[in-house]
């Protein structure tokens, strides 16, 4: 050590010396800031809920629970009910999740399990994520001009020949549940596939190699080992996608038909809470505003419920999955 230069000494000193007061202060400030921001986020959520709830109060006291069970929306006679909207919100989002979830997870598997050369994988990934950058008005227009005309002959045939199945009970006139759900499924695709992809690529390689070592084929390894290991992440992706679908506004307002009715038929027009809000808010009078706020509160509650259920299922499922993979 005798021939160590001064600078070396200085450097080693900085490594081994206790942190200076400056460093401690920096550390404290940073910790304080992050904590502050974290709490601020929580506070904002509470503020929003509080604000919406106070504005909705007159409507809640006036219409009470009847609001959730009746199905007319008549500003003239002040009769308000959002049962069809609740139904439409859940129905369209579930349909979108079925379609978008299936394709999203498939894309994620395809892009992580060495089916393609790395460069192509990268290109594909970016193309899928570009879908998230398209504004929803454009999705709406695309739905009106492309999706609906494409669906029309198919829907006509299904209705003619399989009309006894409740899903095809009515004929498609244009906007309706199915076009809305199809476009919605494309809108949630990037969310679902990006998060599933991360989950799948985080599965340790050793697991895969071990599965191969035990004689599993490629598909056996994917279905039996990799997907179950990544299942918590995939499930999280699906919950996020569902939440995204529940709140979609503009594209749905253009495609769902905004008609206050409940039908299992995929070809019937329906309505969703978000689209109801979008259509009525700009010109809502004093009497209608609290009612719309009440509807917004219900939408908020649905979204929160979905996320809470998601977290709950996630916790239990992941515990089981870990047990299975041990």
């Amino acid at each position, binding site marked *: 050590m005798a021939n160590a230069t001064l600078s070396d000494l200085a450097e080693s000193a900085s490594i081994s010396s206790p942190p200076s007061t400056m460093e401690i202060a920096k550390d404290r400030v940073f910790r304080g800031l992050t904590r502050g921001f974290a709490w601020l986020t929580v506070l904002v959520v509470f503020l929003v809920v509080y604000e919406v709830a106070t504005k909705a109060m007159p409507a809640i006291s006036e219409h009470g629970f009847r609001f959730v069970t009746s199905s*007319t*929306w*008549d*500003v*003239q*006679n002040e009769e308000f009910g959002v049962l069809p909207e609740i139904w439409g919100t859940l129905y369209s989002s579930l349909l979108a999740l079925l379609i978008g979830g299936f394709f999203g997870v498939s894309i994620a598997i395809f892009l992580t399990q060495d089916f393609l050369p790395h460069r192509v994988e990268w290109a594909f990934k970016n193309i899928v994520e570009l879908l998230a950058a398209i504004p929803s*008005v454009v999705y709406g*227009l695309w739905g*009106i*001009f492309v999706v*609906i*005309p494409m669906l029309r002959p198919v829907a006509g045939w299904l209705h003619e020949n399989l009309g006894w199945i409740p899903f095809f009970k*009515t*004929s498609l*006139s*244009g*906007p*309706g549940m199915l076009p809305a759900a199809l476009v919605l499924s494309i809108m949630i695709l990037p969310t679902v596939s990006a998060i599933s992809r991360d989950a799948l690529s985080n599965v340790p390689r050793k697991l895969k190699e071990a599965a191969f070592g035990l004689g599993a084929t490629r598909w056996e390894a994917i279905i039996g080992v990799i997907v179950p290991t990544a299942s918590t992440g995939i499930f999280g992706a699906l919950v996020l996608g569902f939440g995204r679908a529940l709140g979609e506004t503009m594209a749905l*307002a*253009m495609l769902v*038909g*905004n*008609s*206050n*009715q409940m*039908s299992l*038929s995929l070809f*019937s*027009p329906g309505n969703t809470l978000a*689209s109801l809000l*979008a*259509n*009525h808010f*700009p*010109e*809502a*009078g004093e009497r209608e505003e609290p009612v719309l706020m009440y509807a917004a509160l219900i939408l908020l509650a649905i979204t929160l419920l979905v996320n809470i259920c998601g977290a709950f299922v996630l916790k239990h499922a992941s515990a089981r999955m870990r047990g299975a993979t041990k």
Partner: protein
Amino acid sequence: MNKTAFRFCCLTALTVLVGCNASSTSSSSPGGDSGSAAQNIKLQGSGASFPAPLYGRWFKEYSAATEGVKVDYQAKGSGGGIKDFIGHTVDFAASDAAMNDSEIAQVDDGVVLLPMTAGSVVLAYNLPKLKKPLVLSRDAYSKIFLGKIAKWNDEAITATNEGVDLPDLPVTVVRRADSSGTTFVFTNHLSAISKEFADGPGVGKSVSWPESDKFIAAPKNDGVTATIMQTPGAIGYVEFGFADQAKLPMATLQNAAGKFIEPTLENATAALAGVEMPEDLRAWLPDPTGDNAYPIVSYTWLLCYEKYEDSSKAAALKSLVKWCLHQGQESSAEMGYIPLPENVVATVTEKLESIQ
């Protein structure tokens, strides 16, 4: 098909643009303050979206013609405009439905309602194989909007369209999903000609239409236009300008005199001519008389206060309205609006003097 789609996207983009910047600010001339009567006055307005393109143009031209008067207009819808007006957050507002008595009572400074221009509501439809324009009797179109006619080859429709092969298509009715002045004008007319409609949906900016699978709702005028374009067998009500720009066919309708009238500017102007202006200028035309009167027309109003605290503001507003009533009317027809008849212009100019 693609061409139409493209045209439509452009139209929509345009409307959105207009909707977002329907405020018109003058290009204030550099160094315009030559110490003369140049005042820097800013007038704030908000309200109806239907006349917004025309107002935007007027205010811009007026600002260019005068020095130092800026007009900001936000097209947020008639209802929103009335709300702002009652809340005193604007200097003037615009509405397709004149204020009712209870709304007027809420304004302490008094209200002056000034008709500025008028528009017609047309029934645009989509029947791909139809060669001649569709002709609808009063009975037929009121029944269609009550959801009582299921197929295009229904007796009520074929009766007035002789020699035309009407398809066995379901009738799909497209209505507005949002609250709108257009809906008000249209339901006002339907309630005047059909008792059943008056007792059912009634009159309003948004009414409760019959619930059926064949009633679909779309947001805004352009949403309705797009939906009609894309739905074979659809019929819906839109402002004349929108249907005209999208090249949608429009139905010829039967008027109060029993004549079948095409929706043209001349016929709409004829409808205005037969109306007596009441004292408060709230002229309703639920069902205009006159042989050539197109049946669904309406004025659109500018709402001003009777008293302004700032006298220079009142003066600026008066000169603005005067300009719109005279020089402005020339651009109305070009943009698909109905120019005010001479006698109405005179009446409104007179009324303008009551603003202090």
